[in-house]
């Protein structure tokens, strides 16, 4: 397989972008990435989006974005895997180049969530409709069950959950593109409006609009160009049951573990080699479970690990230096690529006040549903 590098990145502001449409957000991020990569064409386009059909009534967005970008007749495909649609689009782009089919591929993610759709209903379509949604459960409810189980099994505390939010809001306060740039305290998180006990609104990622794009190139093409290269050295993806009740232990996110192992194996690195990680903290409990599955800390200790500051910007393994989904925002289809944008900026040393020192190897972990699909990528400068 040919080696793949990221040679350009672009991203819109994340937030309630009332005056920017689905297509305009995508084009804004795409043009920024294309400018960054200093290229004048692409061979293929992969767009990650969870459900633009439910959010704004628009499907078929591969061709739509190619057209609006002025790139028709380039082959274009919309990739869907719930909230890890963006990460999966990156994986498809990598395979396209690795196979020798394309030299330059634009991968992106986009979601327009604030256009009046019933967001809870649209997001719930990523859960098991027959066995979960039909009976009234929502994603906050599902993650609240995971949180309760984790607290019961491992003694994880309410304060430890809140520590994830406090840390991510701190990081997001340093990110100009973050939706929420305000800092929060443990007390504020715990006493915020209850969403699904024990998770409050400050344990939960927001409803957001946004787009992010990255330009991928084959290493041989990238080497001929005068742009900074970040190599994609590992990719791994895995699945689990959609329905939480079908799992032996709901505190285990097996798809995360399996996708990480595949990526580590391909990259030839261990968890201790990772300098920073962008992970899918759709709820605070998710980040705690994920850092355990990624092998940054042993199972059950994620809450303590976070509370002790190991995942802070100056910690042993900084997690979500961008602010994560919680603070940066979570336009679902865009999240997986926004994670790549952050890791590339970090590895290039361009992350300004939130720069992780000596960042050489970065990891992204993007997840769909309550962990039914997960995709992990590892990057090296």
């Amino acid at each position, binding site marked *: 397989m040919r080696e793949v590098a990221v040679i350009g990145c672009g991203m819109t502001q994340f937030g*309630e972008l*009332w*005056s920017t449409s689905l297509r305009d957000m995508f084009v804004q991020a795409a043009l920024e990435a294309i400018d960054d990569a200093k290229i004048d064409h692409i061979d293929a386009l992969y767009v990650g989006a969870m459900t633009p059909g439910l959010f704004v009534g628009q499907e078929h967005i591969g061709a739509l974005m190619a057209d609006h970008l002025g790139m028709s007749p380039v082959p274009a495909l919309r990739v869907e895997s719930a909230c890890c649609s963006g990460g999966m689009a990156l994986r498809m782009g990598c395979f396209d180049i690795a196979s020798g089919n394309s030299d330059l591929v634009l991968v992106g993610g986009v979601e327009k969530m*604030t256009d*009046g759709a019933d967001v809870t209903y649209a997001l719930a379509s990523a859960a098991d409709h027959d066995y979960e949604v039909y009976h009234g459960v929502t994603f906050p409810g599902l993650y609240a069950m995971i949180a309760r189980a984790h607290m019961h099994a491992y003694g994880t505390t309410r304060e430890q959950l809140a520590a994830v939010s406090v840390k991510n809001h701190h990081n997001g306060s340093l990110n100009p593109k973050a939706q929420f740039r305000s800092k929060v305290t443990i007390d504020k998180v715990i006493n915020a*409006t*209850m969403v699904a006990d024990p998770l409050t609104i400050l344990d939960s990622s927001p409803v957001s609009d946004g787009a992010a794009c990255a330009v991928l190139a084959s290493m041989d093409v990238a080497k001929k160009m005068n742009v900074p290269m970040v190599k994609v050295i590992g990719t791994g993806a895995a699945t689990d049951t959609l329905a939480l009740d079908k799992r032996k232990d709901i505190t285990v996110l097996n798809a995360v573990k399996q996708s990480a192992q595949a990526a580590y194996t391909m990259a030839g690195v261990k968890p201790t080699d990772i300098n920073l990680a962008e992970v899918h903290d759709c709820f605070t409990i998710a980040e705690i479970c994920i850092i355990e599955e990624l092998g940054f800390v042993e199972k059950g200790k994620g809450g303590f690990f976070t509370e002790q500051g190991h995942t802070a910007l100056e910690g042993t393994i900084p997690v979500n230096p961008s602010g994560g989904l919680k603070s940066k925002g979570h336009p679902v289809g865009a999240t997986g690529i926004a994670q790549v944008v952050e890791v590339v900026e970090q590895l290039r040393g361009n992350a300004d006040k939130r720069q992780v020192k000596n960042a050489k190897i970065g990891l992204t972990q993007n997840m769909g549903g309550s962990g039914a699909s997960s995709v992990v990528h590892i990057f090296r400068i």
Partner: protein
Amino acid sequence: MVGIVGYGSYVPRYRIKVEEIAHQWGRDSETVKRGLLLQEKTVPGMDEDTITISYEAARNALKRAGIDASEIGALYIGSESHPYAVKPSGTVVAEALGIVPNVHIADYEFACKAGTEAMFVAYSLVKAGLMKYAMGIGADTSQGAPGDALEFSASAGGSAFIMGTDGVVAEVLDTFSYTTDTPDFWRREGAFYPLHGGRFTGQPAYFKHVLGAGTEILDKSGYKASDFAYAIFHMPNGKFPLTAGKKLGFTKEQMEPGWIVPLMGNTYSGSSPTGFSATLDIAKPDDLILLVSFGSGAGSDAFIFKVTKRINDVRDKADKVKDMLENNRIYLDYGEYAKYRGKIIMND
């Protein structure tokens, strides 16, 4: 000098507390009170509607104006709860007040700013010299669907303003209107309750238009926030007007007298006009007052008033807003409230 020669308000006696509505729907009342800065809201009695509220407010305005009602050349009622889809509210009120038949009547609708529209047109006609007096009324028995966030705020009440040139109590120094096509809140023909765009009703709707109109009228008039004794901004909840006012440079003290929403709720077309009426109740001669309404769809009307000495002669001639809000209250439970608001399906 063109301005208000008489003003008056009406607030129904019935109330329901936030706790009662929150309890009904399993919501945490403290979260609602903290989030919306509301305590209770007014509820129209079973025989009250926009017409009766308009009439009561108009009678109070006539008491203060001390004029012969038949001299009023136009009467306009702004509301989003006119009792009839076809048949004017204004004719009933005009007939009851004794100002028919030589009068121009129209009902206005522009979500929550229909009241200030009526005031603006009444003011413009007098300013143009077409008539001696014209009356603008904002009144509503606001609708909010059961269980919707609007149910905590949608309330009833209204205010009437008679514009004229003789015996002015508050001169209109300037006006400014700011309007765009922004669909943040709507009710289709035949629909019982309005729909809204959730958070879209905030930044791109309320704040854009209130701040737009507020900024423009300050620029146009040359006044600064600190020149004003008082300011009133439309009150869809407790938080929005305070946030908007603060952004324009106003203090809580300047807004307090007109910030009636914690006890009154959002009386839609009657909201900012009644806040203005409550402010006139305590204003002194020469006070400058800024009034900025907001109507979804969306637009804001801004007015700058200067209070005259006559305010001291007229304010006690009719009931004051604060007295009506704080006295003579009858609290309803949710069942009674549902009956009063016609939310129960009857077999008739």
